[in-house]
């Protein structure tokens, strides 16, 4: 498992009903591509986060499949239309099966 993985998300605290809000996420991770060589000249095995899923009150909003071409400490921003108050749930899946999660609330009205 990759060490020191820390997800950060930025969701506006408040929004009006029907607003399209921008959500920014960042997660610290090496995103080892599997093509880099270590000091011993051997390839460092691939170890990346390959999937990111975002739901709002349990309903899917946005999903991303990531390949090794995504930079280390992956950043991802996207939009969501909010009609009611609720909670965004973010889930990142690592190559080794580890899951990193974070939630963030938004008040609408």
């Amino acid at each position, binding site marked *: 498992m990759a060490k020191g993985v820390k997800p950060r998300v930025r969701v506006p605290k408040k929004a009006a009903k029907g607003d399209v809000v921008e959500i920014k996420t960042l997660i610290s991770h090496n995103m080892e591509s599997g093509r*880099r060589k270590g000091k011993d000249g051997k390839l460092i095995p691939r170890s990346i986060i390959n999937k990111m899923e975002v739901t709002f009150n349990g309903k899917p*909003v*946005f999903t991303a499949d990531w390949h090794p071409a*995504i*930079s280390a400490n*992956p950043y991802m921003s*996207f939009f*969501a*239309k909010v009609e009611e108050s609720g909670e965004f749930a973010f889930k990142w899946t690592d190559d080794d099966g580890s899951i990193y999660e974070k939630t963030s609330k938004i008040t609408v009205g």
Partner: protein
Amino acid sequence: MSTKQALSAMTRREALLLAAGATIVAAGGVVLKSGTANADQKMVDEAVMKLIGDKKPAEGKITLELPQIAENGNTVPVGVSVDSPMTADNYVKTVHLFADGNPAPDVASLHFTPMSGKASAATRIRLAGTQNIVAVAEMSDGSVFRAQQEVKVTIGGCGG
């Protein structure tokens, strides 16, 4: 004519040109050598076909936001947005990103829903060198769009 005679017959300018030419040839050799391992337009086309089938993509609708020149290929900001009302019966399902000069053409697949509100997202990617970024958008009605933009990369970012 001996080599010495040939050299003396050559003007200074010719000699400089010849030297410059040799350097370019040498540099070209290096580029070719490292280029063999990388993807090309054909591999991108194959990767696109694998994901969307044999549909013919149309031009338009997609806007790619990329720097013209990226100084560091390790982290190149990329933004993509697709013109769509994003309603329940007319929305962008997926946007696939490809890079035709990386060791592998796939970069990311972004799946949107009507709850996304707008089909727009941004991330940061690795680019091994100057190359084209290709975006392919699949709409909910089955139509497919494609856009492409070149990025010049000063220092490649794929390790190895």
